[in-house]
């Protein structure tokens, strides 16, 4: 019976929103250092995420690979919620060329979490958790993009991003000893698939002279569909009475929601050694759909009157509309270059403000969130023709970003709420580096 109850509990679960980690922590160290204000600037592998049109600006075959590590200290009532760190490899390849004398480029970007390829953790919707930052690390991202530059001042790009998804079945059969569960003889079968969902990405970039670029990018909405079906068949033994048992459970939920986003960006170069970027992103969080599991369950057990109290079928979860709000996210970044005959060195800084899309949690849901301010710094090194075998360029970028989530206080309308009010605050540190080679 404890196993049955565990499954009943599992049927009432919710998966956190867990949006794409690249949108939160950045793709590439140069990009993260400049507040990810890159829609009108980026040209490397990170263009597969920020603006695929930027791929068409690439001049050489480019390989990039990097790593970032985000440590999170997210608090509820002053207690660390031990939200998972976010770690992973970023990288990709950009291959430029010409087709009918029109410049084009193919780009492949990859984010590979170095903990797990995929992870799902579910909770009831009333349990407090950091909705936008919990569990979002475990997401595999692959973006395959194409870009063309039909005229010198215009680049267009687009493609498909792939996100991993999990679905599965499991079955348990055998005899459960309810008096001594450790003596149970049960067989477990798990069948899980790692499937993908596809998300469209589009972008455009306009060069207004030598000193100003404008960019526009669109990322489609996506969410991972999680399905779990369980079938338990067997016998339960209690006080010498053996009864046939069958328990079925179906659970359907969502994970890794990524809202639709439209970004307008500008990149100005008032001086050959100075660049200033500004992005403004519209994020459609209002379409966020609660990840609470829609579940059904049924328990059949007979011949145990007076011995076992058979629980009724679980009550279907009443899924609350999370009522998230759309938001505008401003991002700014600056970059200055020191030029030497042999190497070039850059210093970078950025700032991002993300207003929380989560409304006050006065009811039974507890999607914890707060506004987020991110300050970032970084440096870059460019070494042209570093050796006889490489006549392109060697690039090394590092970044450090600090996010501050000021305290947000939640007060419940119902004084009998089982969770009650709480204070939420936090901070995140993001460190990383990216190594790139232009051939």
């Amino acid at each position: 019976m404890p196993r049955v109850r565990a499954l009943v509990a599992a049927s009432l679960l919710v998966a956190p929103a867990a949006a794409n980690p690249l949108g939160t922590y950045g793709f590439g160290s140069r990009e993260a250092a400049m507040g990810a204000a890159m829609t009108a600037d980026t040209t490397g592998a990170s263009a597969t995420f920020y603006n695929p049109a930027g791929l068409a600006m690439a001049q050489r075959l480019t390989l990039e690979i990097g790593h970032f590590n985000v440590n999170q200290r997210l608090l509820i009532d002053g207690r660390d919620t031990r939200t998972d760190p976010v770690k992973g490899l970023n990288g990709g390849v950009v291959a430029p060329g010409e087709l009918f004398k029109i410049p084009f480029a193919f780009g492949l970007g990859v984010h590979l979490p170095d903990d797990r390829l995929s992870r799902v953790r579910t909770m009831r919707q009333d349990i407090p958790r950091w909705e936008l930052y919990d569990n979002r690390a475990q997401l595999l991202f692959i973006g395959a993009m194409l870009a063309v530059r039909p005229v010198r001042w215009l680049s267009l790009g687009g493609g498909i991003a792939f996100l991993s998804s999990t679905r599965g079945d499991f079955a348990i059969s055998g005899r459960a000893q309810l008096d001594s569960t450790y003596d149970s003889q049960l067989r477990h079968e798990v069948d899980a698939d790692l499937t993908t969902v596809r998300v469209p990405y589009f972008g455009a970039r306009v060069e207004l002279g030598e000193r100003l670029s404008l960019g526009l990018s669109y990322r489609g909405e996506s969410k991972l569909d999680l399905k779990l079906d369980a079938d338990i068949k067997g016998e339960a033994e209690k006080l010498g009475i053996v009864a046939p048992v069958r328990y079925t459970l179906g659970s359907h939920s969502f994970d890794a929601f990524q809202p639709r986003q439209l970004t307008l960006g500008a990149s100005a170069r008032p001086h050959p050694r100075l660049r200033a970027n500004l992005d403004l992103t519209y994020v459609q969080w209002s379409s966020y759909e609660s990840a609470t599991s829609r579940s059904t369950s049924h328990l059949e057990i007979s011949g145990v009157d007076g011995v076992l109290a058979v629980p009724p079928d679980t009550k279907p979860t009443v899924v609350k509309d999370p009522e998230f709000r759309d938001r505008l996210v401003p991002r700014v970044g600056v970059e200055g270059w020191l030029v030497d005959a042999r190497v070039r060195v850059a210093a970078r800084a950025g700032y991002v403000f993300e207003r929380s899309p989560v409304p006050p949690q006065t009811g039974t849901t507890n999607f914890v969130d707060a506004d987020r301010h991110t300050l970032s710094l970084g440096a870059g090194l460019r070494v042209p023709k570093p050796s006889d075998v490489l006549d392109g360029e060697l690039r090394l970028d590092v970044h450090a970003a600090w996010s501050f989530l000021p305290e947000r206080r939640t007060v419940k309308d119902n004084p009998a709420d089982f969770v009650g009010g709480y204070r939420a605050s936090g901070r995140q540190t993001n460190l990383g580096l990216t190594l790139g080679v232009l051939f």
Partner: protein
Amino acid sequence: MSARHAAWLGLLLLAAGACGTAAPPAGNDDSINPNARLGPFRPLRKPSEGTSAPQIAPASRKWDHPAALPLHEDPTDLALELFVDSGTPRVITRFELAAGPARRASITDAMVALSHAADPLGWESTDVAHPFVLRAGAETRLYYASGACIGVAVRGGDGAFVKRPEPALCADGASSWEGPLVTAPAVLADGAGWTMFYESGGAIGEAASADGFVFSRSGGAPVLTPRPPAGPLTDGGVDEPFDDARVGDPHAQRGVSSDGRSIVHVYYTGENRAGATAIGLASRFDGGPLTRSTAPVFTRYDARGPSIVQKGALTLLITGGRTNEAQATTAGGVLVGLAPATSSLPSLVAEGDDAGAP
């Protein structure tokens, strides 16, 4: 790709591999729940008895309406004194419950604390029941129901309770909602005075007092009534309200919201139209109406008659109920629930013990 390209690619992969780390244990597995002490409660079990209820009073005697009071202020000391009503006619019995050797709870010093026969009062019936015990300063008061009224007794220096001659509150025939009896008192005492919640006519009413001995009704309406039925009575399944036939047996305590507002929590017995009972919770901010929680706090064993004891980070729910969940005839046990439900109580694993029972 040329050899030099492959060489540089290999260098990149080597650098990336050096950054990779092994997966740590999944974090954030503990939910954070600021109000977890309010409930829901999980039953403390008697491991040796399987599905039998986790009673701490002997099943052979049908003890009911438990009221608990900590014996010591130390938040780590879980010793309690319990008052229950039992027998025919009903008398109130007191015993002490403490963690004994081998983590067994031991019942000691059982004695009749209050009865009609030993000290009869004119307004009482022969039954003395529904104890509620309260420590106010240096004084311990025992409220009880008898006849159509609620009385109060005060513990003297010798440990015996002495009844006050006048009742604290009696049924009011003029009241539009009350029944012929008032019963199941629960009293709050603080700087603002004394507040009593009581049951009458299947609902819960409220009365106030300046001294805690004589109460007058607060308003002309109950503060909590049965929930409106959701529809035709079916099988009492999960979609049925647990309290659409009766609410009663209140137990009140104070709390504070996250923004510093004073809250009154009222635990109560809810009974549905199928006759099943469970423990519910309704709370209010000062001056506001009672609002129910989204779910009952304890639904097992047909529990009824809650009494709440807070000890440090834990809350104990002491309640009456069945001694075997699968058999409707086995009533009369005293059960213990624990909140937060994910916590444990290693020093008090409830084991029934007849030793010392009168």
